């Protein structure tokens, strides 16, 4: 059992959890992830590690509600427990002094990009962070990134905050302005990572993406997370999750990630129906309690 020390929404549908996980906290490095299982009937899902505190023995993870498991996870609060958390998994980011590093975070991927940005900065790089989100409320970790970046650029799809557009617009701007870029690290939705890869391929800029395919054990045993990289089948959990963006076959990644779409939608619909029913039951119970209290009060009088 892993205790939730602190839980707080940092954006609509995006929650940060601080978990008691001393072993993982001691070992976590930027770029790594955990796999968790909330309860006995639960599935195992990979989740981003945002940060860790080896002294306190805690890690923080950032979770966006997308399917049943993440909705359920985000309904948990400080003091609740998670049945299984295993990690840190995957190879850490390759952190060295490259020169100028552009760190691109899309949506909740920003949480995984942040520790790498900080590590690049500590390694002596000039760090330019580009954060993209659908809308203003979904821009996360802006202050944290500003603290570890030489420059931060923000885009929102709807223009509700900073500049309207996509992360690739900002990256293109940097390239067009003649900024010398030695490395791009892009973490976010597959469409975003693919767009970044296409853009930098033409410019011959070394680019790394962090993949999040379907996974069960996270130790190389099941092979569910296989993805063609440079024509070779690689396992994201042990060979990755970071790969050379110009060699990843994004098409196969998208196709394989869609494998359980129907089941995922059904799970989520069932979950939302049951929570709605529970909420209405609670409402009924609350109303009845109120009424019976009212009756009791009347009796007193």
């Amino acid at each position, binding site marked *: 059992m892993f205790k939730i020390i602190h839980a707080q929404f940092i954006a609509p549908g995006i929650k940060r959890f601080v978990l008691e996980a001393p072993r993982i906290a001691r070992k976590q490095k930027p770029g790594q992830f955990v796999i968790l299982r909330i309860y006995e*009937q639960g*599935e195992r899902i990979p989740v981003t590690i945002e940060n860790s505190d080896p002294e306190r023995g805690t890690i923080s993870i950032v979770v966006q509600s997308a399917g049943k498991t993440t909705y359920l996870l985000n309904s948990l609060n400080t003091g609740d427990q998670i049945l299984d958390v295993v990690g840190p998994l995957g190879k850490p980011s390759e952190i060295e002094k490259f020169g100028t590093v552009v760190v691109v975070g899309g949506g909740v991927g920003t949480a995984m990009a942040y520790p790498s940005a900080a590590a690049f900065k500590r390694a002596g790089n000039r760090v330019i962070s580009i954060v993209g989100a659908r809308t203003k409320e979904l821009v996360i970790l802006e202050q944290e990134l500003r603290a570890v970046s030489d420059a931060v650029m923000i885009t929102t799809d709807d223009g509700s905050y900073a500049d309207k557009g996509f992360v690739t617009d900002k990256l293109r701007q940097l390239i067009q302005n003649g900024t010398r870029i030695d490395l791009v690290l892009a973490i976010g939705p597959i469409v975003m990572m693919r767009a970044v890869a296409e853009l930098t391929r033409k410019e011959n800029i070394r680019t790394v993406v962090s993949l999040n395919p379907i996974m069960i054990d996270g130790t190389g045993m099941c*092979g569910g997370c296989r993805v063609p990289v440079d024509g070779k089948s690689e396992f994201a959990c042990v060979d990755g999750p970071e790969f050379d963006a110009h060699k990843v076959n994004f098409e196969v990644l998208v196709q394989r990630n869609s494998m359980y779409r129907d089941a995922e939608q059904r799970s989520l619909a069932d979950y939302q129906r049951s929570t709605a029913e529970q909420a209405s039951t609670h409402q009924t119970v609350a109303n009845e309690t109120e009424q019976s209290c009212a009756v009791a009060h009347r009796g007193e009088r």
Partner: protein
Amino acid sequence: MSPTASKSLNPLPMKERIKVPRQLMPEQPADERNRNFSEVNLGYSAELARQEALRCLECAKPTCTDSCPVGVKVKEFVELIVAGDFLGAAAKIREDNVLPAVTGRVCPQEDHCEGKCLLSKKVKPLGIGYLERFVADYEQRMGTHILPNVQPTGKKVAVVGSGPSGLTVAGDLIQKGHKVRVFEALHELGGVLVYGIPEFRLPKQIIREQLDYMREMGVEFETDVVVGRTVTIDELMHEEGFDAVYIGTGAGLPQFMGIPGENFNGVYSANEFLTRINLMKAYKFPTYDEPMVDLHGKDVAVIGGGNTALDAIRSALRLGARKAYVIYRRSDAEMPARAEEVHHARQEGIDFQMLTAPVEFLSDGKGWLTAARCVRMELGEPDSSGRRRPVPIKGSEFDLPLSVAVMAIGTTANPIVQSTTPGLGTDKRGYIQADSETQRTTRPGVFAGGDIVTGAATVILAMGAGRRAAKSIHDFLTSGQW
């Protein structure tokens, strides 16, 4: 005790013993069991067990024991069955084998004890596996076992992996008085026994009972620890105070053939397919959250001819598959699967496409598997494995319509421990180098055994390695000599 010295407890004269037929294992009818996950074999009754035990010829030089990787004293435990002392028989097996209820079910006895049984020269061999299973189950039902009385040595051993070899090491060393802590990467203990072997061949309750027994003896378990990532071997030894470490991390990364279409949706590795079913209970979706492709009415094939292949395809059949094929590139004679499993699979209606191999997978254009393009093979000259090499027959291609294909063609070494343990020697395939007698690695205090040393093998061979390692670890801990 020397049974040859004392008078035999078996009332039958030798000549009569050979006339007693091998007692059949009661089993679920094939047309019922192929739709459920309950155990295929139902187990001997006490009567059947005693009847079977009477067949033992009590050889002066028991080849059964010599050919057993863990050296179970077969003659002695069988004699205790004849005497009606079933608990004593179980205790006798436990001296050499900490998982008798497991090996009684999944061990390929034809390659070991029963294969070497003197009876098999004339008639069917003694049902040693069935007898082992009977006494282990009997002991479990009685709920009593004699806990060994041991003096603590003050030494601590870390066991990496809770599969058959790790559990053997743990069980043997705890009985020598050492403290033992087992680390498991998954959320459930048992390794391949829980994620790999299906319920109908090895009920999970059996593993849980064996684990409870080990906890009673004092073995500690910690799940959700990937050694190499969560903690390294060096940290276990230098920071957590373990005097020795045993690495039994098991079979590794699933292999694929490298043919076109292997990434289509519907193509699984056997490890993933079986893990979804056995560990994650995906077939109970949506009661359980982990999904899998719904197999009802679908045509499913497994590629490969080992036990894992048969476990996968027989599971598919039980989950409603319309057609269930085994596609194997060699012939019956070369199939590595356990004889009883092949026999059971045929009874259940599995369609064996022998001397056949896929060359490409085809899809619906949207990424979902629709068929395997296969080619027929013939056997040529023997290859490096000593088996005749399959050679494709020109022009024999045909398409086999399929919704799901499961690749069960073996595994390669998992690199996590090796890549995070400086000085740990590996062979050219990436498996850990360990002495075949002492299981010592190139790192003092570190031992290894099972599939991570040999490549994919059987439960009993992994247990045999565990047995040798435990002895060698005990020697190391008591002598301090490497």
